[in-house]
């Protein structure tokens, strides 16, 4: 590859991919089994997604704006999943049940879809850049 690599794009690519992989890792497994879904993975996915969203602030290009939108959707979904988890494990008298777990994981799976779209957009942008 010739020329200077755009560091901003590399950093963003890193965070978008990390968000998607963490999100995917958390969602994989039986939907209502708390032992198969590590809360730290959810936590890391939330943090990384928020950072990926921030990295798209102030991008005036069309594709940058869409990436901001998808990252924002994923962040909101993951934060909601975390809130449900907090409700289940700390507030609800019955503790973290399979029901709670199922809704946490399904909301996180929704976020995963948004993260996939982000990754696809990233790939599209990279490919069109190479062609130029």
């Amino acid at each position: 590859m010739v020329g200077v690599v755009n560091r901003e794009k590399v950093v963003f690519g890193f965070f978008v991919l990390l968000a998607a992989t963490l999100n995917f890792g958390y969602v994989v497994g039986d939907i209502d089994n708390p032992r198969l879904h590590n809360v730290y993975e959810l936590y890391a996915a939330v943090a990384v997604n928020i950072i990926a969203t921030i990295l798209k602030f102030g991008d005036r290009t069309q594709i940058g704006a869409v990436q901001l939108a998808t990252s924002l959707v994923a962040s909101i979904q993951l934060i909601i999943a975390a809130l449900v988890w907090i409700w289940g494990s700390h507030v609800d008298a019955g503790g973290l049940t399979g029901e709670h777990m199922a809704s946490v994981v399904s909301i996180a799976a929704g976020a995963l879809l948004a993260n996939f779209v982000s990754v696809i957009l990233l790939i599209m942008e990279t490919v069109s850049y190479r062609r130029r």
Partner: protein
Amino acid sequence: MANLLQLLRGGTLARARPDSLRRVRVDVPAEPPGTDAVFLILRRVRTPLVVLVSVFAVMTFGLSFMPGTEENPDRLSVFDSFYVISYTGLTIGYGEVPHAFSYPQRIWVTLTIYASVVAWSYSIGALLSLAQEQTFRRALALNRFTRKVRAIQEPFVLVVGYGQAGEAVCRALEDQGRNFVVLDSDPERIEHLALDNYTTDVPAMAASGRDPRILGMAGLGHPNCEAVLALTDNDETNLSVVMTVNLLRPELMVIARCSDREHAQQMHDFAADVVINPFDRYGAYLVMALRRPSGFRLASWLMSPRGSELPHKLEHLTDGHWVVSADGTFGFEVTRDLESAGLDVVLVDPADGRPDVSDAVGFIAGAESDIVNMAMAAHARIENDNLFIAVRQNSAVNHAPLRAFDADSVFVPTELLAREAVARITSPNYWSFIDHVLHEDDDWDAR
């Protein structure tokens, strides 16, 4: 019939106006030349925000791994850790919740306190430095200006150049209750405008009128824009404004200031409605004052500010020779005008010392320095008490001494410019009446 070739090129067919050089209708550009202030802020907050989020994330994660005390051996849950880090990181500090911490937990919270203080001071510092940055402030000012211009509901005039002439025009426009937008490349003049106490809020921006995008932001594309005045002291800038208006909004009225014939001709090529060369106009007025005193009285009274009295008549100034002491184009223009009126004129250079005026009927002190003019005029008055003395005043600063001197005619280029520009813009009918007066013969005026 429409020209099919033009349609093929993709542009909208321009409405035919014979004196516009436009062939294709193009929208007036209004894209801010700098970056949008909002985007600028968002770009700059990225790093501070990422730093803050990372500090909070790492500290929360770490705290949830620190072992508990002997009484409460369980580690803090992710939520409890987030709670503790939130109030610690935001320097609120509730103490040790939900129960007393173990030493590893306390060590970690201590670390958190210092890390968050560093992160906050970095972030706030970055934002404050952004607020002080010139580019950012300019972007903000540009945004504010565009918004103000866009919100104008009534017809307005776009004034490019806020020097002495621009200021005089703005005063007169305000006196007539009209709206205007001001552009000047000198930020000091724009600051000055804020102190000038206009009754309305005048949108003003320190930017060059040479940039069509700036003109677009200043309301060139606005449906309520009705005229553009190019009054800068730079002929090329004025020409650029005339060209832009002619090509992008040919239906607007353009009045331009100009100080030499070449540029005036170029402006006429671009169909400027009015090109005012103050030097040339002064000669014309002077000739008129000599040849047709009544007409001059009427015209100058019509162009004076409201409430002025009729100026006194001038007589017996055509039988004798005139002395013009001037440098640059002014001497050339005035001499030409006076000669074409059949007068006997002697043009001298102010650098050659005090001219001999003992047997002249009129003397014009037209140097570029007001002090030199005053000195020459004073000497002329000492030498010949009946002399008609005209003095060119370049700076408004010297208004008071010149008034005390009470020359027969004081030529203030910027004032003349402003008066004509305002007369033409306030009412075209009014101006055509003045124009009529200017071209009638003296018997008509005397009536």
